[in-house]
């Protein structure tokens, strides 16, 4: 049943933590361009807009001396990078993320569900981090295809993250926790205050129907797996059908690596 998914980002690097140092080079900091692509989805936080709030409060206090304030962008960028390295260090099971090329505030991700009601689901999503991070709201998680789930908005595909992070507290809350949460909802289903009431009701009243709907949803998502990424970005995660010529080598490497470890 499990097709051997080959997942690749255009940049060719996913989680490189296991790799040798080469992977750690400059790529780690997401190089990006100042200008955003022409086609912008409205839901995307506007990265091109000046992020004056970005600087940590400390830096803003310093803004009196002009030079200092100019480092603000570095702080934001590096905070996000640090978050990303935290994600990597967590080695979250079945979750892969990749900051976008254009903005460190937008991450592409995919979750592999390995058992439970949503077994075999492969859900692509995008994480939007508020530009006043870490002092703003919690990041948003939007599934590319709205999954049939009580906590996922059936229209926008947005996951209800806030219920888990009512108040985003710097130093305590991290993006990896959000990702972990996004995974957890597929294993432990909560029907309180649903974004998708239908799913919630079904789950409570007619679990069988819910199950079949979930399976349908999984199938739907998987049928769109090979679609072009919704957001045009060099680092967007895109899937392609298994092609031995392309993927066999990588697969062997992965397995060999595991053995040696």
């Amino acid at each position, binding site marked *: 049943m499990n097709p051997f998914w080959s997942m690749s980002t255009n940049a060719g690097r996913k989680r490189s933590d296991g790799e040798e140092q080469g992977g750690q080079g400059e790529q780690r900091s997401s190089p990006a361009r100042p200008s955003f692509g022409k086609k912008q989805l409205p839901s995307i936080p506007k*990265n091109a807009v*000046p992020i004056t709030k970005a600087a940590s409060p400390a830096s803003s206090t310093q803004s009196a001396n002009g030079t200092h304030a*100019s480092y603000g962008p570095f702080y934001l960028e590096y905070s996000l990078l640090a978050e990303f390295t935290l994600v990597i260090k967590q080695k979250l099971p079945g979750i892969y993320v990749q900051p976008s090329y254009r903005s460190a505030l937008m991450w592409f991700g995919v979750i592999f569900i390995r058992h439970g009601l949503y077994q075999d689901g492969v859900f692509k999503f995008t994480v939007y981090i508020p530009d006043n991070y870490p002092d703003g709201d919690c990041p948003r998680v939007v599934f590319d295809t709205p999954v049939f789930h009580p906590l996922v908005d059936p229209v926008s595909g947005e996951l209800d993250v806030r219920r888990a992070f009512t108040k985003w507290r*710097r130093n305590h809350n991290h993006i990896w926790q959000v990702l972990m949460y996004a995974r957890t909802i597929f294993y432990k289903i909560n029907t309180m205050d649903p974004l998708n009431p239908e799913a919630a009701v079904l789950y409570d009243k007619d679990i069988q129907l819910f199950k079949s709907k979930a399976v349908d949803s999984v199938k739907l998502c998987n049928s769109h797996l090979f679609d072009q990424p919704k957001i045009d970005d060099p680092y967007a995660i895109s899937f392609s059908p298994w092609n031995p010529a392309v993927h066999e080598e990588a697969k062997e490497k992965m397995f060999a690596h595991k053995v040696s470890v």
Partner: protein
Amino acid sequence: MSWLSRLNPRGPGTRTGRHAAPSSPCTADPETCLMVFENHWRQVSGVLKLRESSVGGYADDLTAVRNHTDQMLCLLAEESPAGGDIESPAMGPILEMVVAENILDELVQWHLRRGLDPDSQLELLKLFEMLIGQSHQPLLLHSAVLQPLLSLLGACVDPQLGCSASLESSLVLLLNQVCVCMAKETAVLELIFRCGPVQQGSTNLLIFSLLVPFIHRDGSLGQQARDALLLVMATSASNHAVARHIAENSYFCPVLATGLSGLYSSLPRKIEVRGDDWHTLQREDWMGVSSLVLFMNSLEFCNAVVQVAHPLVRCQLLDYLHNGFLVPVMGPALHKSSVDEMIASTAYLDLFLRSITETSLLKTFLRFILLHRHDNDTILDTLLTRISSNSRLCMVSLSLFKTLLSLNCEDLMLQLVLRYLLPCTHVMLSQRRAVRETDLYGKSADKFLSLIPECCQITAAPSSERDDEPAFWGKVLGSPTSESPVNPRPSTPSRLALFIRQQSSGGQANPPSSGLENAPSSPRGTVSSSLSPDSPMHQLQDASEGETGYLEYLRDARKGIELCSWACRDWSAPYDGENPSPNSALPQPPPPMSNPSLSMVQEHFSIMDPAQQRAAVVAAARAEWSSSDRDRGEWDVTISKNCISLTPRSKKRSLLPSSIPLQSSSSTSVSTEITGAVKTVSQHSHSAPHPALYNGMGQVELTDSVDERMDVKKVKRDSDVNNSVVESGMNGSMGMCPVDYNDFHVGSSMKSSQVQVKPHLQHQTAVPSSTQECLQSESQRSPVPALTETFTVPCESRGPESVERLIEELLERAPSEPLSSDSKCQGISIEAFHQELRELEERVRERRVLLHSSEESSRESHTATAPSLTDEDCLPVETEQRASETKPDSSAPGVLSPARPLGQPLAQPYTGPFITVLFSKLESMMQNSLYVNILLTGVVFQLACYPQPLLRSFLLNANMVFQPSVKSLIQVLGSVKNRIEAFAAAHEDFPAMLRKARRFLVARGKLDWSDSPMGVPHLRRSDSLIKSRKPSLGDLILRHTNSPTRARHAAQLAFAHVRDGGQSLHSALFRGGAVSGASGLEKQAEALRVKNAVYCSVIFSEFLKELAALAQEHAVALPFPPSQGTEE
């Protein structure tokens, strides 16, 4: 092909019937040759036989034989194998005949019987060399060839015949050829090895022993001999018997090692220094010094031997290098009393360390540096103290430490820094968990950046306008634009965007700065860029430019961190505050504190008398070993401290003693205690200098610390460390000028020595009860060094958890040899001092009794109004400690636990001598010369690259709360900032001077680069900074000083600029004052002061950016997984 195949079948046949060989069918050509050969041989043998019957040589005979032999051997050499497969080619007919009739042997024997005159000896050597070098057949596999060769060679060793100088080159060449053959045909080695004893009773491996004397020869002869030896080494690597022979029966290793000693002794004692900035020996420096070239050749050879030789040989060589070169030669050399010699030996050591590539050899050197004790001090401690010395010695030492840091050696880092941080006593208890935290939101970076003095953030516009020079400079540099004052960075609409763009483009995006980062090719670009990077304040064209500089720092930081964490990926522990456990390490770290700081100070002083310095150093080193050492040491130390500090206060003294007892508690066994005491003694001496350092930095703090210490005393436990610190602090408060110390090193050292004597006396008088102690301590002093060495051994064996243990284990891991050598040394020293130890033990016992009696009383009297009281305090503490110690003997943690309950601060937060020196040096940045600052910040940068959370959090985490007595890097930098600002406020034209200083630095850098376009680092930062860190830059500096022609010229130019710059700086300063009649000297001094301060301001702001960049990069760095054992 066809020819070969035709002959093929013949091979076996000939073999079976050797004697028939000559007659066997052959192709025309070989056959003819054979006939010619036979012909020659017939004639020669006629002569030979004649000779046998009638004694007495005729010249004619000799000539005839010679001529015929020539011909014969030429024929033999040119003969091709007769066929056969590649594995075992059949012999050619001539060779068969040679083998069958043993022709060569007869020839050589005839010569030998006849008496070899040098002439014919030479002739024969050449013949054989030709034969072996040119033959198409593996002649040496046949004993008919090998034996005569060995006989001939044997004659060369013959004491009567000897080997005259004229023969040497032929001999070595022949041997070289033989070795080349041997490398091709491994079996030859075995043959030679077996044949040897028959021919040559003395040694099995004649070839080898013949070569050994040439190891250290100069020129091509030596090179050939070394090459040949290396071949032997490589060939014998897999042959245990031969390796054993080399190790056991040859003088190879001793000759090699002691030869190094000999060569070292002929090195220049003083290095002629060309420039202010010279601080390290580069290739260009030593290529011109023949003695150094000779030495480096031999060292290189050692390195190569270690690389290829059999483990047995390697071990032995390393052993000899340690015991025959490092210990007896390098050790004393590093402790020479004259500054010039210290500079030279330190630079040599640095050069050696940089030249060695073999890990095990490197380990031998490191073992020497870390563990060997010379006059009680480890080499490391001695070297540490030098950092605080005057500028040249300081620079050389700093660059040595830079080299050491770049090795990423766990043992070294453990010894230098980590052991002191391991207990986590420098952190508030509540903060320990924060050690591992990463600074996610750039708070630390922000903090560092906020420390950039306002006055250094020149609002470019006004200041630049002020002096008309910008335009001028702009022209000169070819980048007028860079100078043009622009309004401060316009607030770009999107900072982030800007930032991102730059990052992605790598500087290529903006045309003006395009050259900055990566393009060495455009010096101009670099110049402008260099300016911009200097500071965001530089507001060149646009905000982006300013940030470019920071981006560079980020990149550097990332590279540094990645390299470092990659190199450290196989370390035994993460050093994150939990692993290794702080408890396990606790006992050791605190003691060293007092020692290291002291030692450092002493160094300054000690320039004059190295012995003191060493003692201090040693003491510091010992502190690690065990608290017990400290106890004794403290007693002594107090004395020494008093002397050094010159402190009138009785309190201090009292404090010191109390601290001593605390330390003693840790020591378990009597013997250990004694040793500990000895160590402490040395420490004491160190402690005295310590205060001076503190004073220099912040007197105010000192006073505070004193109070604290008083409290601590009550606690008793912790008091040890604290006390020492307090004392130092007190001394400082007493009115010594810390800052000045550096400058006054020489003078001070004299003073200090005098002072010391006095203190002893005072101590005795002041404390009646302590007199005994004093005596004891004095008596102990002499044995101290020995003791310390011995002591280490027991410590190691005892506490597996201890840092020493760890180090030992680590060292053992790779080369087992070094350890053994070390242990040997220790053993020796132990024996020597055995008796002394016993005596000491007895004394200690006596002392204990006294202590016990006085315990109770002492506790009550903490205030220390009376000197005697302090002593008493100490006593009780000791007793307590002992009790506790006895229980935990083996485990350090146990010791600690008892201490804690008693007092609050317990373990002294001592961050180690290295940190202490670096910080004190940093605090005096304003007074340091430009080059010292460049090196200094480079070393700190490198230190801060280490990813270990303990180190990282200590240096870079601005949020950490340390114990009050622990100075943080932020604090140190803050004080520098204040001073710079005060200075700037006091000098009206500071901004102008600052700009000039920057320009000079840039110009200087530019010259360098234009000279060598290849290595162009960008000038982005103040180029000088770059230079300090980057090898290439360092090269530049050196190049100026030493190197030939172009480089030198460029260097001179650059220096000229700098000098001019300096003068103009001065002149700027003294525009008004110059006219006045102030004495020239004063003016000069003042000018120097101003110059240093201004340059310091430039470096300082760049340094802060570097640190900020490091802090940020650490937050996003990923650890490397340990290598899977594939690597060595």
